[in-house]
């Protein structure tokens, strides 16, 4: 039982990270209608920024705040300078730009800070003895911290979308950009804010995951997380925030359980099996679990 609980805890923790990055993907998708391939690498870059600030003997919380800020600015700039000019053309062009960012940002991080593995300090207590015991399973401080961050972010986003003007405008743009523009919404600014927001969320996911990740902070850290996150976002149905969170958690737990209980899969086929299950689900529901089906007039 305690083994099961431990797997559940680790699954939920990884799942929360996937959910965070998936939220970033969904925010972009709702605005621009594309999957931001560079989201993971953007998060990686901002995490390097945070790491670099901690090596300058700045407190970790300041470093995280700065990384969020950098993430916001970079996201907004990317939208304004690189995405918007080509977004009118088609999906493929945006996708290629994102692929370019993917390679470019990853290499830029390597160029600035070297490719060797860095140790990123955790903002939460994560020593050997910092755990609460639940039914024999150990719940460590940083796992709790990650859950807390996800819940907190969900709360903030609900507030943003429900009760603020910017949130209302973002929903309007996601729903129908043309109508929103005609009604006086400054669509272009809203799009930039959306990308900035997702850059900041990605940065949060990055700084939270690296102390937990087996590779710590290296150039490959974010890639597998990005794969899982994009699967989570698609699973939930690209345009649903709730779907992204549910998707992330489901994938995290699925991975942990499959790895733990199905010996054929073991530690080596977890991505494959998680993704396969999602494909099967997509087969049944082609726009994800919570996605809206688009009706097109022909």
């Amino acid at each position, binding site marked *: 039982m305690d083994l099961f609980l431990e797997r559940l805890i680790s699954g939920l923790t990884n799942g929360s990270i996937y959910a965070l990055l998936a939220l970033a993907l969904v925010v972009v998708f709702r605005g621009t209608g594309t999957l931001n391939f560079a989201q993971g690498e953007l998060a990686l870059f901002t995490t390097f920024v945070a790491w670099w600030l901690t090596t300058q003997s700045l407190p970790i919380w300041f470093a995280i705040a700065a990384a969020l800020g950098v993430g916001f600015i970079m996201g907004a700039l990317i939208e304004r300078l690189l995405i918007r000019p080509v977004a009118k053309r088609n*999906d493929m062009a945006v996708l290629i*730009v994102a692929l370019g960012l993917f390679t470019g940002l990853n*290499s830029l991080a390597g160029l600035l800070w070297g490719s060797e593995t860095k140790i990123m300090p955790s903002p939460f207590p994560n020593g050997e003895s910092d755990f609460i015991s639940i039914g024999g399973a150990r719940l460590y401080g940083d796992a709790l911290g990650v859950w807390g961050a996800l819940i907190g972010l969900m709360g903030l986003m609900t507030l943003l979308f429900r009760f603020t003007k910017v949130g209302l405008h973002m929903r309007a743009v996601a729903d129908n950009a043309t109508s929103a523009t005609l009604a006086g919404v400054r669509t272009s600014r809203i799009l930039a804010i959306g990308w900035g927001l997702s850059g900041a969320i990605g940065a949060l996911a990055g700084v939270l995951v690296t102390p937990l990740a087996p590779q710590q902070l290296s150039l490959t850290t974010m890639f597998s997380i990005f794969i899982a996150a994009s699967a989570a976002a698609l699973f939930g149905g*690209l345009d649903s925030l709730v779907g992204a969170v549910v998707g992330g958690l489901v994938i995290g737990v699925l991975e942990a359980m499959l790895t733990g209980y199905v010996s054929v899969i073991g530690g080596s086929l977890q991505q494959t099996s998680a993704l396969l299950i999602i494909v099967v689900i*997509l087969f049944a529901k082609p726009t994800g679990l919570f996605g809206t089906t688009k009706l097109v007039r022909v």
Partner: protein
Amino acid sequence: MGVQDPTVVDDTPRVTAPGGMPSGPVPAPVSPGGGGLTGRGPLTIIEGSRRHWALRALGVVAVVAVLLLASQAQAFRVGQFTNVFIIAIAIVGLNLVTGHTGLLSIGHSAFFGLGAYTTGVLVARYDAAPMTTIPVAVVLSFVLGLLVGLPSLRIKGLYLALVTLTVGVSFPEIIRRAEELTGGAAGLVVRSASLAPPAWTGLGRAQRGIWMFWVSAAVLLLVMWLSRNLVRSRFGLGMRSTRDHEIAAAASGVRVARTKILAFGVSGAITGLAGSLFTMYIGALSPDGSFTLLKSIELVTGLVLGGIATQLGPVVGAVAVVFLPQLTGAFSTGPLSGVVFGVVLIAIVFVMPEGIVGRIGLWVRRRVAVVPADRPGLAADTTAAPPPAPPPHSNTHNRWEDQ
């Protein structure tokens, strides 16, 4: 965008843009009876005329000359050229499904890998002759392609990209898992003795480089010819109309489902063929080496750089992805080349969205038009009446996108 007007079939690479990729400025139309007379229109060449054949012959001579010249280069250069050919074959495969059918695949590394590992395992474990493994690799990749194509009936757009992503991500994991057969993470080494050129060529084991150079070049030419014919066939028309407007295609009698699945199959088979050659060329395989998602990204990059849905794009794109990292690596090895790679990729989208070949094709088509002999109205030097129905502009460009 456009189902091409069958009347402008010619040898120059076509710039059609997939799923809405802009084809840039519309090439100058060949106005009936105008053209050459005014001196401003393109040079008109009638398809099948002596001039046309001379041009074709010139093209063949040029290709043979370039190949002969390239084969004389230093051994490591010859190796690089071989690599270019192999990547080009893989991109030709990708082009069929992504360029001509409009289904974005980011899982083609799996087809490449399946072909490579089929040949590798058969040669290393079962002592098969390398060339005899090619059909096996092609058939297996074809079947995998059909399987990947299957979900495309229900799953569309980015969701479909996720399916291909799954295949791309899974492949290295499965290879690592199937250790007994594939050597797992440690990799699979094929003894160079088993990869030696066949005896009838008279080439020794040390000349494997030049042997693979010619084999790859021949396969590339064959595959390009097949792909060209496929795209121009009735099936190819179905592929393009599926890309341009699926509902209209279905309404016009195109079997969209079959078209998509078969396109994936053929595409996978060609990319698998490239993988098979890759094993013979490189001799050692590892799951994390050439078969990860990054390979898929490299192939997509090559396709876009060269020119989506063009005939020569894959070759130019392959040259770019093989040599660009080395060029940029020359002034600084390592990360900087990655940065430059990313910047170049983005720059291409901004300044040359139709790709290198696409851009050149536009330029050429403004100056040279090859028209079929049975449409005399298109030829510049004829006095025959223009064909009854079409208004001046409708001959040269499709009208789909304008509606």
